[in-house]
């Protein structure tokens, strides 16, 4: 059997069902990574079919093939430059017009393609009937109707794709713009004739008129004259139509998509609103939308954390149960310390992070795929704007109250790198469960609950003001919500679980080494009796500036590993859990304040590194340490003056 290799890419709008189809096709043989040098995700998988080894690439969900976002750039470069043997354009049958707008652009890239007309069930539910034969004829592209979540049509899709590659493809119908635009495009194509380009000429001509920066730059390198001609032509079109040239072209493209859609689809609007519609109205309702959201989020919160706590305890009981075995094996000397230090790091990672991250991912994907996430963003947009973010950022920030790690990872749902970074930064300032332990266990229990509450209020104020500050300081386009709220859908569990699995393994790869190194370092410092000297070195900060006992230097260092260790170590080092004996009220408050802000724990730092790279992670870490120390010292002085 010959082993011929084929490459097939899946392309389409966001949320059309590409991932589900991808999963059906590739099963477990997949790999999720990033596009080289980009923060855009790349899902790749392989399958064997009729003697072929087929590489399937799941391109990011996009609405256009311009150079506006990284996702769009990556997708069109892949299609134009790497030239996959075929592109499967996945279309949401229930939003045909908008999806065809994208199809028309794929046609302009002159790539061989097959269309998967997906979500046929939802279209039917909405009373939309599509004449597939007619659509096939108009576009001259084979179309396979599918219901990805049920696996319907996926096999036929694959068959058709391979058949098309073997046959050599028929050319899809070229779409024509209005008279003047078409004429100008043709003139430009003639001018481009002699140039060596990686994109098709017609596409380049159109993109030049659209003022596409990447294309302009490329053509400019070979022939600056064509670019300036194109600019003049664009001006002319603008004068003729009264709108900018890109506007005219986009409008005309949409007109074509609209015409085709109207021609092939019949709409029988159901007599009464569907359950889907009712659910949407309820969950976005001005009044009842909020209690629904809050109860659902609390429930999720509760589920994640009871599950997390339970599993975490269980795992740590089991894993720490092996400690005597290790002590027997390696002794408690140098070797024993190192081995146990490394093992304890792994145990810490397993017991602290995983029990929360796994359910978190599952729920995040369920929320996203079902469509509820976009409803939350709709309801919360306004509040989030106060800190320079938009509605979608509410999710990571809220998750931060549980654990900052999933919060940082959850920032992926934001569209731009800048928003991702601001949201992650804000999330690391949110008091996670471990910090709540310190706030409540120290200040709440010994100073008074109103002071604990005060800490939360201070934190919220800090979050809002630093969020705004970061928003002002970071360059880039200001955030605004432009989001599709697609119909509610039943998520495909298998896809959700697979996505979770890949995310979690990815996290383990990054975080665990860091946690192990951190744990080892502290164990070694302990072994060589370096903790005392370190506490002494830190004492100008801890004792003089913050007014705390010197041992807190050590506890704060342990807190980097896991925040609640600050409290645990304090008890160990002070030899008592009755903190009132060893600390004044002011000291407790200051210590809790510093612990709350001073640094994200090592797992969070790992998450930051993974999402944003070393530099930014380090910057956030150092900033937060400095900020916490300054604020702690100020609080110490103010509180001493007011003497609580």
């Amino acid at each position: 059997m010959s082993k011929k290799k084929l490459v097939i890419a899946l392309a389409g709008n966001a949320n059309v069902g590409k991932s589900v189809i991808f999963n059906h096709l590739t099963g477990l043989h997949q790999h999720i990574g990033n596009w080289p040098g980009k923060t855009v995700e790349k899902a790749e998988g392989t399958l064997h079919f009729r003697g072929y080894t087929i590489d399937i690439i799941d391109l990011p969900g996009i609405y256009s093939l311009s150079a506006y976002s990284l996702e769009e750039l990556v997708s069109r470069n892949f299609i134009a430059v790497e030239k996959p043997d075929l592109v499967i354009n996945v279309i949401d049958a229930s939003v045909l017009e908008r999806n065809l707008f994208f199809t028309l652009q794929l046609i302009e890239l002159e790539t061989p393609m097959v269309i998967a007309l997906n979500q046929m069930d939802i279209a039917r539910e909405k009373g939309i009937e599509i004449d597939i034969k007619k659509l096939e004829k108009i576009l001259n592209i084979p179309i396979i109707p599918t219901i990805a979540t049920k696996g319907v049509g996926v096999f036929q899709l694959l068959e058709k794709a391979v058949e098309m590659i073997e046959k050599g493809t028929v050319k899809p119908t070229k779409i024509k713009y209005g008279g003047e635009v078409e004429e100008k495009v043709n003139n430009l194509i003639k001018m481009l004739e002699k140039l060596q380009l990686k994109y098709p000429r017609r596409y380049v001509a159109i993109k030049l008129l659209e003022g596409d920066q990447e294309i302009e730059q490329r053509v400019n390198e070979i022939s600056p004259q064509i670019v300036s001609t194109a600019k003049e032509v664009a001006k002319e079109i603008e004068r003729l139509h009264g709108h900018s040239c890109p506007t005219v072209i986009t409008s005309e493209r949409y007109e074509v998509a609209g015409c085709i859609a109207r021609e092939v689809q019949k709409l029988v609007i159901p007599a009464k609103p569907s359950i889907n519609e009712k659910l949407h109205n309820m969950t976005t309702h001005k009044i009842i939308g909020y209690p629904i959201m809050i109860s659902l989020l609390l429930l999720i919160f509760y589920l994640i954390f009871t599950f997390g706590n339970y599993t975490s305890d269980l795992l740590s009981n089991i894993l720490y149960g092996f400690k005597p075995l290790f002590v027997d094996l390696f002794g408690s000397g140098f070797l024993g310390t190192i081995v146990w230090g490394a093992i304890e790091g792994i145990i810490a990672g397993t017991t602290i992070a995983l029990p929360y991250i796994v359910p978190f991912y599952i729920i995040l994907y369920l929320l996203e795929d079902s469509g509820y996430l976009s409803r939350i963003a709709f309801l919360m947009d306004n509040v989030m704007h106060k800190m320079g973010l938009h509605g979608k950022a509410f999710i990571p920030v809220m998750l931060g109250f549980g654990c900052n790690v999933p919060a940082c990872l959850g920032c992926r749902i934001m569209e731009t790198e800048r928003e991702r970074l601001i949201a992650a930064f804000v999330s690391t300032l949110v008091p996670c469960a471990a910090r709540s332990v310190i706030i409540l266990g120290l200040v709440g229990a010994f100073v008074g609950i109103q002071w604990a509450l005060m800490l939360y209020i201070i934190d919220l104020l800090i979050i809002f003001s630093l969020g705004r500050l970061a928003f002002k300081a970071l360059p880039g386009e200001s955030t605004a919500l432009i989001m599709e709220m697609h119909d509610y859908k039943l998520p495909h569990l298998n896809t959700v679980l697979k996505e979770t699995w890949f995310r979690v393994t990815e996290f383990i790869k990054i975080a665990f080494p860091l946690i192990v190194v951190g744990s080892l370092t502290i164990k070694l410092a302990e072994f060589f009796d370096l903790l005392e000297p370190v506490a002494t070195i830190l004492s100008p900060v801890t004792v003089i500036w913050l007014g705390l006992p010197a041992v807190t230097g050590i506890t704060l260092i342990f807190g980097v590993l896991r925040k609640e260790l600050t409290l645990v170590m304090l008890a160990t080092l002070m030899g008592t859990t009755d903190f009132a004996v060893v600390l004044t009220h002011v000291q407790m408050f200051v210590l809790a304040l510093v612990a709350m802000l001073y640094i994200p724990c090592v797992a969070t730092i790992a998450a930051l590194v993974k999402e944003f790279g070393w530099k930014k992670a380090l910057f956030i870490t150092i900033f937060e340490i400095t900020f916490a120390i300054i604020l702690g010292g100020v609080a110490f002085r103010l509180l001493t003056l007011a003497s609580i």
Partner: protein
Amino acid sequence: MERQSSGRVEVPLSTLRDGESGVVSSIMPRHGKGWGFEKRLMDLGITPGTRITVVKSAPFHGPVEVLVRGSRLALGRGMADRIFVEVDRK
């Protein structure tokens, strides 16, 4: 900010009442902010000449839910202020 044009008025999308619809006439660019956001709106189907219906807005000046070309979108309030639509108003 109202512009009169042959019996119809041109108003920002954000001023439409729930359930009201209009035809997009123009999108006002933001000063010096590049043209990314208009591009995004247009790619989602909000092009001049398109009929757009406001379904509802979230409270406290929140985003606006609109129907356009058979899809449902949420637009931040700032966005909706910049989209001008023609409506029939007496």
